[in-house]
């Protein structure tokens, strides 16, 4: 619940036009403020402090949870450990004190401080978070923790991320530590599934089918991935190797191995979403009807059951992650592809978008109340932008505004970040941003990269 409030406050700070959620608007300007002076390192550790300080600042800033106080306002003397604080004597400063930070010109609510050193061949971080508006050091302390990493850039980055994650946890923000983004890349010459950390590091190839492998979806427990592949059929005399009809493949994310999934006989079948129970899969397929419809199956492909019953194209069904009782999906029943919702049994169908333009790629926020999707409204066909919608009220926020072609928004497990694909030059690349459209970061550069899915990660 706390997370929901934070999400809404993030969104509505960016967009003031939704008068009816006045309760949340009281949060406007109420974002907690934090000061993060540069940490210093003892001895060799100082060489890693540029990396450390940069990472810590970026992680906190990009969380969208905190307002960063500019470093230019900070006092000259910065505490490095609790013992550095000296209460004023007879109203006169005796050294660094809480009011140096809570009062002007800094005016912060919180202060992160500490230092690093190398000990026994490891980089050790001593980190604290203080609520500087408290009267004394004891009541000010919110976090005091030691972090250990390798004595190199990687270690510096890691301890900074861990410290930031612990701070953010205090503000109700889910940490992105350990989360992993799966995506499609053609950098080998074939579209394959790849994965990377949420900051774009450690990019690894996951599949090697040497065909067209695309449309990944992941289970919410982070253990399985389903995607769509055109299985290659070997060459025979007089016939080159060709792709077969597209089918669903299921893999374990823990072992990487292919799992049993029985596809129906159909000209096309694509993975659409895992149900929140992680025991069922939503798919779209031409099986039994000859036109793409939405079905639900067990994890091995059994229990094949049809949900939609139309003569129009039905694709991209996504189950409400909170309830599993309703789904949003893309349907061409009105002529152009638009976003609809319905109950999981196919009843109570309602169109959510206005009918303008082409829609695509609905994705539920973990809160089960908001979706992100792409839409060409106001632009030529093909020029998609990212939108967020409150499903109950159908209120909209547009996050991109014509910078390239923006598709496949997908929420981070924290419900505050989005990953998406954008073609802003000659190639499509993967970006992350906050749910208010700020904090844009490009994660990929090599080849074309698309269809990102942000997973919890396996560890």
């Amino acid at each position: 619940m706390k997370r929901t409030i934070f999400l809404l406050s993030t969104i509505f700070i960016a967009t003031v036009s939704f008068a009816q959620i006045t309760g949340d608007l009281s949060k406007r300007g109420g974002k907690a403020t934090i000061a993060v002076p540069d940490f210093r390192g003892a001895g060799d550790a100082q060489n890693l402090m540029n990396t450390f300080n940069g990472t810590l600042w970026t992680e906190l800033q990009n969380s969208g949870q905190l307002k960063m106080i500019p470093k230019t306002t900070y006092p000259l003397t910065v505490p490095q450990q609790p013992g550095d604080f000296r209460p004023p004597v007879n109203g006169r400063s005796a050294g660094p004190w809480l009011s140096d930070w809570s009062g002007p010109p800094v005016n912060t609510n919180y202060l992160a401080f500490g230092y690093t050193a190398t000990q026994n061949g490891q980089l050790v971080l001593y980190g604290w978070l203080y609520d500087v508006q408290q009267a004394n050091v004891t009541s000010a302390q919110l976090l005091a923790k030691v972090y250990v990493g390798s004595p190199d850039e990687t270690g510096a980055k890691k301890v900074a991320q861990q410290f930031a994650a612990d701070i953010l946890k205090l503000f109700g923000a889910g940490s992105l530590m350990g989360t992993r983004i799966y995506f499609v890349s053609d950098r080998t010459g074939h579209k394959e599934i790849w994965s990377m950390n949420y900051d774009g590091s450690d990019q690894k190839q996951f599949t090697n089918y040497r065909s067209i492998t695309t449309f990944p979806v992941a289970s919410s427990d982070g253990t399985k991935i389903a995607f769509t592949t055109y299985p290659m059929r070997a060459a025979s005399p007089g016939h080159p190797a060709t792709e077969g009809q597209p089918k669903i493949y299921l893999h374990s994310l823990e072992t990487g191995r292919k799992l049993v999934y029985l596809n129906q006989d159909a000209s096309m079948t694509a993975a659409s979403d895992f149900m929140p129970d992680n025991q069922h899969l939503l798919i779209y397929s031409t099986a039994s009807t000859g036109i793409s419809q939405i079905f639900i199956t067990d994890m091995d492909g059994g229990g094949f059951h049809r949900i939609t019953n139309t003569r129009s194209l039905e694709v991209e069904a996504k189950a409400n992650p909170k309830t599993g009782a309703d789904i949003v999906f893309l349907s061409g029943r009105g002529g152009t592809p638009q976003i609809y919702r319905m109950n999981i049994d196919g009843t109570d169908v309602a169109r959510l978008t206005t009918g303008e333009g082409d829609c695509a790629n609905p994705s539920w926020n973990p809160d089960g109340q908001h979706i992100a999707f792409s839409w060409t409204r106001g632009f030529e066909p093909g020029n998609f932008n990212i939108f967020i919608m409150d499903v109950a009220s159908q209120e909209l926020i547009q996050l991109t505004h014509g910078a390239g072609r923006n598709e496949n928004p997908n929420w981070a497990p924290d419900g505050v970040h989005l990953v998406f694909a954008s073609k802003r030059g000659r190639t499509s690349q993967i970006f992350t941003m906050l749910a208010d459209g700020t904090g844009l970061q490009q994660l990929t550069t090599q080849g074309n990269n698309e269809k990102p899915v942000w997973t919890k990660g396996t560890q």
Partner: protein
Amino acid sequence: MSATDRLHASKIAAALLVLTVAVVAPGCSKKVPPPPPPPPPHAAETAPSVARATINSFTAEPSAIERGQSSTLSWSISNATDMSIDNGVGAVQSQGQRQVFPTSSTTYTLTANGPGGSDTRTVTVSVNTPPAPPPAANNGPRLSSAEMLQQQSQDAFFDYNKNDIRADASEALTRDAGLLKQIFAQDPNFTVVVEGHCDERGSAEYNLALGDRRASAAKDFLVQLGVAGDRIKTISYGKERPQCTEANEECWQKNRRAHLSAGQ
């Protein structure tokens, strides 16, 4: 003509000759007394001043041509006053050449008439008619069914976000149906794949389903024209295999298509 008829005809000819001699005879200064020396048949013709028309040469070069080519007739005639070649050439001079364009083998007859008699000569220009083109499959090195399909099939094109068969697509598929029937007849194991493709503007997910509709609409059309449906498979590539990558309508139209390829 029977033998009796031929005999009868020769009698008539003999009678005419006698009559001719009788008519011509009064103009002659020769005596026609009863007994010996038999008169020369035509004393006037032997006279040196009234020579008989003579064709010295009449040739066609070349004498054998391909249809559409020409041959040159050349001739040389003496002592003629009236000369002509039949088969549309008409009156000619005593020396000359004429190009002719016969469409089939033709025998030209040169007739030269003169006061001293006439002469004819014929020359034949033979025209080689090229053999009728064989069925395409036997033309030159034999094409495989897959090559035939690749070279002769036509794509069916679609409107944006549509899978209706337009008039131009209907024409293309009608020709494709004829081609497929021919290939299927000559190659009993051959199967075909109808690929459905889309332009880059729609989402990849929706285009997968739309490409499938295009492929199956094209297949249904072929089956209605009598092509064996069990030998046609469909596959949707959505927008994964564009044949044109520019961002303009001309290119997008090229990509919104159903395309035939050899199955396996």
